């Protein structure tokens, strides 16, 4: 099975302190560290496991600049056979549909049976590219997939997580696009040695023209969704930051919960 996984490079949000730039349109990025979007890791792991079971190959693709190569290499070190970078200045400022258009153009150059994306990206959390890509390709799509079983070379049996923790099982025809929920597997660790081993592997780069796209289909010009502001909400009424050391905080929290009837 030929599998394509779309991955994204995102800032680590766990312990990074996010500050907004002065123009208010983005976050300050100097002190940030980046890694693979967490959901994409699950998608790549799933793709590798499917390939190891039924054969075929796994390609990882990303739309970004040179720094994104690290992310691709990490996924190649995990076990993806090939990494491809879609890079062009003309792509800058693309909205979700623009990104889906770029990816669609790349998909059509290949012969993929299955496309996986992460359920969403941990930075903007839009969760839209997978669905749009499927629509542009006119392929079936399933979101929040947490289980994949290969029935035959035409059909997959997939599980989806439903609100409230319920589970739904579907059959879906190939080729299709699936967005992968975290927890579908346990992504393997990528050691520094693993990354070094793929350090010299070539990562092909495709630009706007290579993909047969025209300028007005992608980038800022084509974008119909534009970010006009970005801010951290002010602390409003009803929100309170508890001060003190851990124990004091825990005690205050317990008191508050008791007072509001949250715990008895």
């Amino acid at each position, binding site marked *: 099975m030929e599998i394509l996984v779309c991955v994204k490079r995102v800032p*680590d949000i*766990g*312990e*990074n*302190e996010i500050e907004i730039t002065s123009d208010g349109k983005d976050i300050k990025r100097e*002190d940030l*560290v980046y*890694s693979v979007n967490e959901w994409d890791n699950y998608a790549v792991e799933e793709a590798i496991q499917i390939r190891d079971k039924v054969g075929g190959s796994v390609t990882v693709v990303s739309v970004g600049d040179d720094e994104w190569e690290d992310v691709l290499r990490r996924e190649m070190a*995990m076990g993806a056979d090939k990494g491809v970078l879609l890079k062009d200045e003309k792509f800058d400022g693309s909205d979700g549909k623009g990104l889906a258009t770029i990816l669609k153009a790349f998909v059509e150059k290949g012969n993929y049976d299955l496309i996986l994306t992460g359920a969403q990206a941990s930075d903007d959390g839009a969760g839209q590219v997978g669905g749009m890509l499927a629509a542009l390709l006119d392929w079936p799509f399933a979101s929040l997939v947490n289980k994949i079983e290969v029935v035959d070379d035409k059909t997959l049996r997939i599980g989806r997580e439903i609100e409230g923790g319920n589970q739904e099982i579907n059959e879906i025809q190939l080729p299709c696009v699936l967005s992968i929920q975290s927890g579908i597997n*346990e*992504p*393997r*660790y*990528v*050691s*520094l*040695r*693993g990354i*070094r*081993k793929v350090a010299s592997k070539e990562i092909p780069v495709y630009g706007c023209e290579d993909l047969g796209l025209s300028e007005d289909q992608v980038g800022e010009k084509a974008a119909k969704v534009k970010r006009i502001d970005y801010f951290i909400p002010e602390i409003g009424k009803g929100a309170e930051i508890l001060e003190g*050391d*851990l124990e004091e905080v825990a005690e205050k929290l317990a008191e508050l919960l008791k007072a509001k009837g949250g715990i008895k």
Partner: protein
Amino acid sequence: MMKEVLSPAYTTFLGLPGSFWGVLIPLVGIACFLYIVARRLIPLAKAAPDPRFDRINLRIKNLFRYWLFQYKQPRYIVAGVIHIVIFAGFLVLSIRSISLVIEGFYPDFVFPGLGGFLGKVYSVLKTYFATFVFIACIVAVIRRVVFKPERYKVPPKYGKEHTFEAIFVLALIGSLMVFESLFEASSGTKEALPPLTLAWFFKLILPTSSISFLQSVHTTSYFIHDFIFFFFLCFLPFGKHFHVLTSIFNVFFMKLDRGVVKPVRYGISEEELDNLEYFGIKYFEDFTWKHMLDFYTCVDCGRCSDNCPANFVGRPLSPRFLTIKSREYMFDRFPVLGLIKPKEPVVGKIFEEDEIWSCTTCGACEEECPVCNEYINKIVDLRRGLVDEGNVPQTIQKALNALEKRGNPYGKMESKRLEWAKSLEGIEVKEVSKKFKPEVLYFVDSATSYDERLQEIAKATATILTKAGVNFGVLGKKEKDSGHEVRRFGEEFLFMTLRDMNTEAILESGASLIVTSDPHAYNCLKKDYSDIPPVEHITEFILRLINEGKIKLKPIEQDDLVFTYHDPCYLGRHNLLYDVPRMVLDSIPNLKRVEMKRCRDRSFCCGGGGLMLFYEAEEEKRMGQVRAEMAYEAGANVIITACPFCLVNIEDGIKTSGLEGKVRVMDITELILQQLS
């Protein structure tokens, strides 16, 4: 003239000449033995390299200490004494046994040097030793059958009890003693035998009148002895009694350095590491030959697991069975008869992942092993294999990724590494720079830098150094995690990256001495780094400050305080700093101190440091809790330790054990700061 009792070689046995049996039994025995040993050496020949021919003088010294003088045996006094008796008996009787075998075809043989007086002395000695060994065997059987010490038990998941083999071998040894003594007693000599010995007793009950009866006893006991002797020799390589033959080599080739981790592969330099197909242990052949010899030599005495904290709290790790399982696998894959089986991955076959991650590398097992088997390097090599395959628990992956990106396992920002110093009043903690090159560098390491509770150790250390007038600085945001656990968790390249960054920053600082309050950093900088200034643990540094009169300590005021010192593994067992911290404590006037039952080289690990904090182990109880309870049992109400991880683990343990208010734990720097006058 009275007929004499003849040497068995001159008589007939089972209708054939004695000399025939005297040649046949040793010949067949030795041939079988050589074949078996050759087969047993096959896996060692296929194993990974392990150069162990260095520092011969030290190796010989160890041979005397641990093999000949059985240094570790009396740590378990009853079993130890029994073993020493049997071991000494084997040594003494080995000469007798060799002579006896030769007499079977060369009756007039006298062992060189034992012809005259010396021979008479030896004869008395060996007669007594045969008796002692016989008694020791009986006592050992009684222990095994009646008293059944807890540590010999075999948990059901590891198979059946090993009692039968133990008793069978004791029976073989006992009967060797019996038949040797019978042979001696039936020799027909008029000379009196040493009183109260087995031979003396047999001579007493054997009728002296019938020479032919004596002769048949003499001949029969000889050949039974001869047969059992060679049977025993060939039986040894089939079980734990292989140690009778291998322990001398095992001790000679033992690991010589504490706290040191073996390279990924001996003979492969760091630059060549990229050429290796994989890291660590994937197949059994990836163990080094010495590690395989360890498996052969294990005596199944259970002392390692009896001291293993992971085993104690019910984690799925038992060093004893890690070895026994490996030995059984060796016997099965490399059988004495038949074909060698093809290689296969060992994780999942012999070892479980959780078993491999459960080890805190505390070293209690290695400290205890009477034949000097090692474990930490095996665990580290197994982990290297898991890391290489990407088989790492998610919680540890997160910490490793954070270490790679931010240089600390919490993923906190580098710029916050010196946050702890901000709240210090009147004390300035300066970062080293081109303009500030201090004499002493305080290496804080990640946990002490970022963990809110542990920052108290950093503050106390900085305050003590300042008050003593020490010109010191810290690396601040240039400091990365020492990488101690990164290496011991098998992520060698990440360790090398961290080490190189730290080494550069340390050398740039221009400091002539590094001080650290974290024993893991201490061990790492000392053993895993090279070409950096000397490293001291803060307790060594404080002791010197006290001795030089640079700091003065006021007496403990409350009379009801009883202190106990908990030895951190990486300060104690791995670096032998047992007395220094105790001397620091004892220099505080009016400090009452008791020892826990498990202290010094038998200290009980708190639960492990560094990345171990991120591992969610299956366990019944926390090690920290067990340790808190041990301190309470010892009658202490203040536990002093000298390691950030011990502090946090024992503090948590006090909470879960319900000992809050009864026992508390402090770092030694916190106590010293409190007592500064």
